């Protein structure tokens, strides 16, 4: 029971939500395929490897687009439709490319009470980028996210996988952006 995603043709166009960004290559690197294969036996059921495999594929290709999903399904030998459903359900799988530094600001209530919304506005102006977009040089993208679990020390900023939750204010925000420019923060996917 395999449900492959239909290819987009001029007679059968995909709905806008289904039209995904294309990756530079269509297959995963050899080392990534091996890592995913190793995952298949780690859990009681190989379906359980879907999430960890998507993380690996996302890191390998830069984002979890159609090619990444297809590859995960192929390597794990599970239905493409299942992988597609899982990848689009969770917010940490990005269906289109993000910047080298993907900055996420928590604007939920606890952070908002300490200026989360203002922090997001500042970020938007300073980096001149709108949510969902990437700057022309591929450096920056921003996202408004829900609770990052740092309510006491908010507002919380997360850059790729690095969490900055030490009461981020103007000066600290500048320091984080500068650290990214200097290359002190791990890049997306690293």
């Amino acid at each position: 029971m395999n449900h492959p995603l239909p290819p987009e043709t001029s007679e059968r166009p995909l709905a806008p939500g289904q039209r995904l960004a294309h990756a530079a290559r269509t297959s995963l690197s050899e080392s990534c395929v091996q890592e995913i294969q190793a995952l298949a036996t780690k859990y009681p059921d190989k379906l359980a490897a879907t999430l960890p495999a998507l993380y690996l594929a996302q890191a390998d290709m830069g984002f979890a687009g159609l090619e990444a999903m297809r590859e995960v399904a192929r390597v794990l030998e599970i239905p493409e439709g299942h992988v597609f459903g899982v990848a689009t359900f969770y917010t940490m799988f990005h269906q289109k490319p993000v910047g080298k530094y993907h900055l996420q600001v928590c604007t939920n209530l606890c952070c908002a009470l300490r200026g989360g919304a203002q922090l997001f506005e500042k970020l938007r102006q300073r980096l001149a980028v709108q949510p969902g977009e990437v700057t022309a040089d591929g450096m920056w993208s921003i996202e408004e996210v829900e609770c990052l679990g740092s309510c006491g020390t908010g507002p919380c900023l997360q850059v790729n996988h690095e969490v900055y939750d030490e009461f981020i204010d103007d000066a600290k925000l500048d320091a984080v952006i500068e650290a990214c420019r200097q290359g002190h923060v791990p890049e997306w996917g690293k």
Partner: protein
Amino acid sequence: MALIRTKPDSQSYTFPGFGSDRFPNFMLRGAGDLDNWHLKTYEGRHEGYVALKKALKMDPASVTAEVKTSSLRGRGGAGFPTGLKWTFMPKDTDEKKHVRYVVCNADEGEPGTFKDRAIMEYNPHQLIEGMIIAGWAMQCRQGFIYVRGEFKWLIDKLDAAIQEARDAGYLGKNILGTGWDFDLLTYRGAGAYICGEETALLNSLEGRRGEPRVKPPFPATRGAYGQPTTVNNVETLAAVPVILRIGGAEYAKIGTPNNAGTRIFGISGHTKRPGLYELPMGTPMDFLVNELAGGCSTGKKIKAIIPGGCSAPMLDEKDFDCPMDFDAMKARGTMAGSGGVIVMDEDVCIVEATLRLTRFYAHESCGQCTPCREGCNWLEMILHRIEHGEGRREDLDLIASLTPRINLRTLCPLGDAACGPIDSALQKFRHEFEYHIEHKRCYVKGQALTVATPAH
């Protein structure tokens, strides 16, 4: 092996008198010290794995009985008696041998809650020990720790701690010569609040979309991978070694009747000293807010407090003295929930705060049940127009007619959680909503709580 993050956090974990008999320190031992997580520290300084050795000498049923005696209640939010939950797991019979799993819910995502990360950061071995004891009590062979995706560095740390425990013979084959095998595996979520609900968590653990399941069958009958499973919160499992060490009866003496033990309360929002405070259950809320956290950070009056994570209905000043335990909170029309206390001063626009929370639920609804999927979006739209000066006179009645159609009509409590803040806000701060509709602006002049949608 991944590098362990060594970044200090600016969180406050202690207060004068913490660690005394009045305020025992069970859960936050060594919190703030980044080297505290190692096995040698846990064994050397914090009586680590003493409880496990004791438990393995007892038969599994007596371990469960000890937890029952302690009257420990689940710290995740629902407050279900832990020992009772453990007894729901089926026993092996001659005809049927079961594969049982114990799962730790570390998908901490309730806004206002940040306690589990402190346990995983500073005392991962306490959680691991609790899981091994739970595994012994229910005779499981495998445990899973489901951690939210954003806590990647904590998963690296847990993996390292699990390896330490394995090397010391606390995990793996033939644990401490008992002939019993048990091992732990971490699983990383991917950013879905709903996966904190136990059946959604189990679906996610199986590599599926995090959609709650129809109950029954309950997880104790059909849980992870179709096998009997018990899901417990991080803090619940970390309390188990304490119970075994000091004894269930002794643990039950702490706190209020039927609400035993200590609990980590996280306080955030407009407070001078936000942070984590471990207190006996039933400590009055104003003691935490005013004495320990130093009162309102803005110097103004406190208008409202959300006492147990953002799903708990708000309290106004007449209830600030409420004891923080499950029963007392319920009696005041709210819930102790996950112990996340959110303080809001008098300049907070309740309409905007409610809008922000409702947007969260509308965003996090898994979309499975119609009342929640559609209802939360409608609530957000209605609150959005009230907040932005387009409210209609009939909107408040419309909200009041919507929430009972969501509440208790969904598979999981997310729908109920979405209604709690709105219903309580409407009940206690109705004048702010009316003012908004009539004057098309906020009743108060605080900073904005929501990001304006950019003009495209």
